[in-house]
């Protein structure tokens, strides 16, 4: 069943369109930067963007920083929100269930397919970011955000860690959207529900009055991937972000399973 879901994922034009759009945004940003040479001042705009003019090899990290706050989670929410509700609204869900595909098995396959999509998306974004960055800005000796220099291996390793962390950060959203996808037959509704949570979280993260709940907000540690480029690496927030996402995933997947396994398929 997992293979079937992966085949559906790769044969779906929407998958590639989404990934194309995700890579288009950092590419457009890079073109503007390269032609105008006007970089945001350090500390403003997306992470790393102030430094890429000097060194294109940082652009994969910058590209992740560009798609991370909105574009990537929206794409993940749409794909995950569609996972069960989309099958329900097309009518194929009833044929899958009476094929028979066990309901738990179906959910697991959907989850794997979403994870593959997220990984594919971040890897392509980072890869295209590297190509675009080195082509437009050239590459030079890398330095960490703390100012020390990094070897190429170290930089590559850290970029890969960042790719993994950003990918993992999306799983909380994915789990919420997937849970909502088992609740409603409307893929749009499920995606919007997950996005509502996301926007709420992002607003509250910036609100000092909400400081008490801040550590539990799903988006709180998203930008911690920047810490991977410090020297030495600042693991604290990365670790917390990892654990927080794991909790969100566990809770909402359990809820999705509990709901779907006992639900009447009436679509």
């Amino acid at each position: 069943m997992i293979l079937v879901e992966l085949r559906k994922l790769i044969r779906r034009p929407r998958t590639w369109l989404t990934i194309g759009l995700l890579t288009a945004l950092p590419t457009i940003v890079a073109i503007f930067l390269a032609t105008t040479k006007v970089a945001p001042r350090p500390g403003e705009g997306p992470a790393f963007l102030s430094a890429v003019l000097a060194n294109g090899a940082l652009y994969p990290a910058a590209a992740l920083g560009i798609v991370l706050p909105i574009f990537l989670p929206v794409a993940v929410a749409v794909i995950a929100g569609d996972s069960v509700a989309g099958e329900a609204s097309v009518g194929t869900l009833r044929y899958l269930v009476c094929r028979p595909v066990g309901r738990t098995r179906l959910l697991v396959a959907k989850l794997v397919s979403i994870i593959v999509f997220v990984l594919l998306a971040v890897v392509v974004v980072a890869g295209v970011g590297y190509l675009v960055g080195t082509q437009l800005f050239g590459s030079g000796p890398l330095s960490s955000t703390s100012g020390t220099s990094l070897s190429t291996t170290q930089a590559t390793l850290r970029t890969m860690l960042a790719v993994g962390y950003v990918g993992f950060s999306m799983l909380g959203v994915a789990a919420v959207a997937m849970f909502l996808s088992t609740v409603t037959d409307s893929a749009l509704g499920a995606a919007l529900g997950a996005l509502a949570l996301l926007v709420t979280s992002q607003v509250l993260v910036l609100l000092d009055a909400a400081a008490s709940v801040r550590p539990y907000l799903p988006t709180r540690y998203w930008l911690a991937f920047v810490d991977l480029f410090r020297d030495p690496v600042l693991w604290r927030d990365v670790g917390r972000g990892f654990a927080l996402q794991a909790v969100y995933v566990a809770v909402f997947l359990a809820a999705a399973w509990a709901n779907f396994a006992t639900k009447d398929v009436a679509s």
Partner: protein
Amino acid sequence: MMAPDVTLAIATTELSKRFGAVLAVDAVDLAVPTGARYGFLGPNGSGKTTTLRMLLGLVFASAGSIEVLGQPMPRQARSVLAQVGALVEGPAAYGHLCGRANLELMDAAGPGAPRRTRRARIDAALERVGLDAVGRRPVKAYSLGMRQRLGLAAALLRAPRLLILDEPTNGLDPQGIHEVRELLLELNYGGTTIFLSSHLLAEVEALCTTVGVVDRGRLVVQDELAALRRLTGNVVVGTPDAERALALLDGRLAHREADRIWVQADDPARLNAELVAAGVRVADLRAERRSLEDVVLAVTTHGSDRIAGGTRIAGGTR
């Protein structure tokens, strides 16, 4: 009623389903004999589709038990449903893929479908439903009838022992309906039990051996078609000499429409002899049977899609 020793492909006991305050299916005892062609009839909203979904493990029963192919559902869904082909409330497919790709995905998704034979099975199923020459066009470009045929092909893919079909001829033209009927008969002769729901009485009358009728969630009739279509005890006589016949048959007349008269008589041959002996010209004469429509209309109420009050428009039982 069914003899108890017949093995049953589908057996439900007191099967019920409640949606909130609505009792959609109310203590239904289905008995579908192995090898039968069972027609499941009822007005819209009477609980047909809900019952069918419970048989397939899509909807969970509120009370009662289900056995399909001798095994409890939904507990044994994995082994039972692998031997069942289904068409539930219209076909469904991924619109951006071609019919063949859809069949491949569905086949690969579940058990009981060896990969080795997949291509051959898909070819055979597409040919059976008349879609073998459809080519690579995506399903979203299919007509309603083609989608219905694809849905049937998906149901036939693993040579099921039991076919559960919801309105299988929906969207097909008369030629297509005929083809599907022939196909179902052929499969049935090959040993496949067929359980089909329909609100087309003519379709059920032409195809089925056994009939169940639901009304407002209750199974109100379940019997063999031949037994349901019993004689009414009337003989219909067509005669140009209706007046003379009336005088002769005084007291035995049931009904008259112009030159057709309905006579209460047990033996059509004797009635014929009597009429002819009295010089009444008989154009045609036959013993009247209850039609399936009479049976169904006698036991059911309006479908739930009828909102207005008032009486039925169509004529009731004679």
